[in-house]
């Protein structure tokens, strides 16, 4: 793997289907993962709704992006986090959030890591750049 460069965080703050923000933020994650940067992704505020299990956009007539979200690890987007309070405020159980990939060896699902706001704030303070969606 290439030498990792500057620390860049993508934040996802918007709900998943009312706008294209989350979908196009995933495209940014996929591309950034191929560049020399130390990439992290944080779902917070309404952005955690994208991690709600069982979403299906067929009835909306929208292609949707749940498959992409479930394949983040395959695209080497591995440092993925969710804000604990945002999940709690929206009634999403921490152990119910979707998987973003599978462990190569065990096949066990990999989930975003749930963090407290203080931990996320400390991560943010260490970034070179934060790109906000």
């Amino acid at each position, binding site marked *: 793997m290439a030498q990792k460069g500057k620390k860049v965080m993508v934040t996802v703050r918007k709900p998943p289907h009312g706008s*294209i*923000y989350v979908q196009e933020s995933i495209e940014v994650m996929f591309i950034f993962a191929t560049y020399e940067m130390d990439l992290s992704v944080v779902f917070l505020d309404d952005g955690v709704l994208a991690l709600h299990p069982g979403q299906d956009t067929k009835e909306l007539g929208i292609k949707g992006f749940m498959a992409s979200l479930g394949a983040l690890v395959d695209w080497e987007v591995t440092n993925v986090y969710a804000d604990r309070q945002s999940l709690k405020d929206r009634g999403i159980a921490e152990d119910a959030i979707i998987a973003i990939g599978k462990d190569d060896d065990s096949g066990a699902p990999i989930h975003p890591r749930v963090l407290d706001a203080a931990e996320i704030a400390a991560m943010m303070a260490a970034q070179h750049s934060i790109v906000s969606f």
Partner: protein
Amino acid sequence: MIISILVLEGPYNHEASDSAYNFIQAALAKGHAIRGIFFYDDGVYNVTRLMDPPQDDRHISRRWSELGATGIDMVVCIAAAKRRGITNEVLAPNIRISGLGQLASMIHESDRIVTFGD
């Protein structure tokens, strides 16, 4: 300071585009450098030359084009543009279509990236 700008909303419908422009003017006036401006999501609508607003209103794509004429790198995301019918044929002068890798480069070469969206 070297700054890059990410614009995520279209013109006229949302203040993000105007806020980005005004921020850039203020930053330049304070002596900062703008490495580049990247248009993404509905932000790609900012740079169509087909735009023809009433004469007593601001002409948003012309404003961006004039900034591009000063040498600032103005880039429209190709994937977002294709989705919305923004092609080289309708692009205002001094603006180019390229990939998200250009955003990665802008971030790498700037001290700050400032996002203007909803």
